[in-house]
């Protein structure tokens, strides 16, 4: 053996060690992050599905801005600030957060109001069931339902592990090109390795991009020192980087707010057709009023938009965000690539499928750890049993929890107090409850039954939706309601996928003698299928 060769072997071995143990430690959290992150590509669509009462036609930004301002003028003209999210292709309603004037007597500054939802065409307030919607999966994806800042720290740590696992995995994998298309079924450990390799290698650009940009998205939190070394106050950095926000006080001299329509048009003209996304009106009906219009990032890779500020009293342009430099553009594009807000339907589904591939990569990696260490006949050691059980708890039970979140949305009465929190609880009670229950069953049955229950929960969604709302599957087909139709279709597809997993888990024999495996599987199939049913 030549010296160079043995050196390469040693490198591969140490990388394999890193890959195995970093991957194992972070695997369960990463699986949950990948799955909920994948769902978050449809964040506004999930929110729409979770408020089936709302049926709104698309409205131009200018009209929506006018009705929003008219509504706020009628209800609370003396606020300090109105924060108006205009509707877009994916969120049909106008959303407003209002901040009342600070009370000089009060010590604590007042919080912003609850979200106000408006019909953009008329400006009438909308009444829909209270829900976190797709926002829940999105927040869980990087906050993990832990108190701030621990969730974000843990997510960042796992992302670092993921990045290290990707790099070490590429170095360890000797046959990237030779095994590029290789996937062999029904070969035990070999099959898990193939699935892990194929799902990782084929979508490697996506995995590397999503992990790196995910880490970069919270970089200011993870690496605060460069800013701390150069700025006394954090806010000064943001002012330098993104321009100073209009935060002036009211002058006390009343002045009517100029119509918002022409300002929206002017901003859109300056952006050469770029759509406004958000309007911040500070000190309305005061001579010092400002109207800041922020650009939508839906048509560009860069997630950070430009802004223009107008005087509310005269309608004249006061300032605009300075053109971002190379560093800020890079940061914006990184964030944009991660969030995928620029993506149209085709690209968004592409992102979604790639996210599922990533989930499969993490899941099969965890399964591979046990497949490699399973010794037929020998009593499994404690760590092995722990990993095996955690795998079941994550891979088989988390989908049931996510389905429970959606089911709870349909089953909890629409007017119930605190229902949004109940929906979230439903996810975690179902997830951890089911995980606890699987402990009572032998490992094989736990896999089969856990996956089957998850499949059943997803399959139930279209049915429950049909019973509890007037936007069931057949109605959607008849009325061409694409969002609800696709949602039902996706739920059934996920149910089929989980059902397939359950069926496969029922078929696989634990390390039978090699030649008899096929016969044994065929012989036991009817019984196992009965177990599933």
């Amino acid at each position, binding site marked *: 053996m030549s010296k160079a060769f043995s050196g390469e072997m040693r490198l591969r071995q140490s990388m394999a060690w890193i890959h195995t143990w970093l991957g194992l430690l972070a695997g369960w959290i990463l699986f949950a992050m990948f799955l909920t992150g994948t769902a978050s590509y449809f964040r506004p669509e999930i929110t729409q599905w979770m408020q089936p009462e709302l049926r709104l036609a698309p409205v131009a930004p200018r009209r929506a801005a006018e009705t929003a301002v008219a509504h706020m003028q009628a209800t609370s003209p003396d606020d300090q600030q109105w924060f108006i999210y205009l509707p877009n292709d994916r969120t049909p309603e106008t959303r407003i957060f209002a901040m009342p004037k600070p009370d000089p007597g009060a010590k604590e500054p007042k919080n912003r109001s609850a979200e106000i939802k408006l019909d953009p065409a008329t400006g009438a307030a909308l009444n829909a069931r209270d829900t976190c919607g797709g926002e829940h999966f999105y927040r869980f994806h990087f906050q993990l339902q832990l108190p701030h800042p621990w969730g974000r720290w843990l997510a960042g740590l796992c992302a670092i592990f993921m990045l290290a696992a990707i790099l070490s995995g590429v170095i360890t994998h000797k046959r990237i090109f030779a095994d*590029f*298309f*290789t*996937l*062999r*079924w029904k070969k035990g450990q070999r099959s898990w390795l193939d699935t892990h390799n*194929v*799902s990782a290698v*084929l*979508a*490697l*650009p*996506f995995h590397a991009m999503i992990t790196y940009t995910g880490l970069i998205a919270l970089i200011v939190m993870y690496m605060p020192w460069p800013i701390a070394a150069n700025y006394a106050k954090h806010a000064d950095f943001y002012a330098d980087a993104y321009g100073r926000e209009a935060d002036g006080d009211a002058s006390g001299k009343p002045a009517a707010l100029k119509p918002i329509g022409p300002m929206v048009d002017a901003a859109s003209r300056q952006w050469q057709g770029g759509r406004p996304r958000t309007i911040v009106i500070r000190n309305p009906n005061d001579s010092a009023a400002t109207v800041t219009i922020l650009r939508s990032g839906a048509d560009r*890779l860069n997630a950070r938009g430009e802004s223009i500020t107008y005087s509310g009293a005269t309608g004249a342009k006061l300032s605009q965000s300075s053109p971002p430099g190379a560093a800020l553009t890079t940061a914006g*594009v990184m964030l944009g*690539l991660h969030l995928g807000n*620029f*993506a149209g*339907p*085709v*690209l968004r589904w*592409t*992102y979604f*499928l*790639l996210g599922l*591939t990533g989930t499969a990569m993490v899941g099969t990696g965890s399964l591979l750890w046990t497949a490699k260490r399973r010794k037929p006949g020998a009593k499994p050691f404690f760590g092995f049993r722990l990993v095996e059980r955690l795998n079941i708890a994550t891979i088989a039970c988390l989908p049931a929890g996510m389905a429970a979140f959606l089911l709870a949305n349909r089953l909890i009465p629409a007017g119930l107090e605190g229902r949004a929190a109940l929906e979230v609880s439903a996810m975690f009670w179902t997830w951890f409850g089911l995980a606890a229950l699987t402990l009572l069953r032998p490992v094989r049955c736990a896999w089969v039954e856990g996956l089957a229950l998850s499949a059943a929960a997803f399959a139930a969604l279209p049915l429950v939706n049909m019973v509890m709302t007037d936007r069931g599957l057949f109605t959607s087909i008849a009325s061409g309601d694409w969002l609800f139709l696709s949602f039902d279709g996706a739920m059934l597809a996920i149910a089929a996928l989980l059902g397939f997993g359950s069926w496969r888990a029922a078929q696989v024999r634990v390390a039978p003698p090699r030649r008899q495996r096929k016969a044994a599987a065929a012989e036991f199939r009817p019984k196992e299928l009965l177990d599933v049913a």
Partner: protein
Amino acid sequence: MSLEPGLISYAALASLALSVMKHRPTPALAFMPLPTMARVTGWLLLAVALLLSLWRFGGPQGVVAWIGQTCVAGAVFVLMLSWRSHAAFTLAVVGFFVAVAMAFA
């Protein structure tokens, strides 16, 4: 619906698979290029998919769409290849012509 880059990428990857001895299906396909020919065709088709993607999605997004759709096409192809290898290659030919029709439509 700009699926052409993905369909062409699928055909490209199928062609590249044909250039690897162990993936060449038996019995042979009705039309099966030699390994070298298959490799050249595969890389050419990947380039065509990139151009189509740039044309359909525009500059920066085109690159993202090309990489993304190629990755998904790869996953679909490998699943098909492991399940029904002949169908996997037939699908590549069908997909290619559908993409051409879509591009000119």
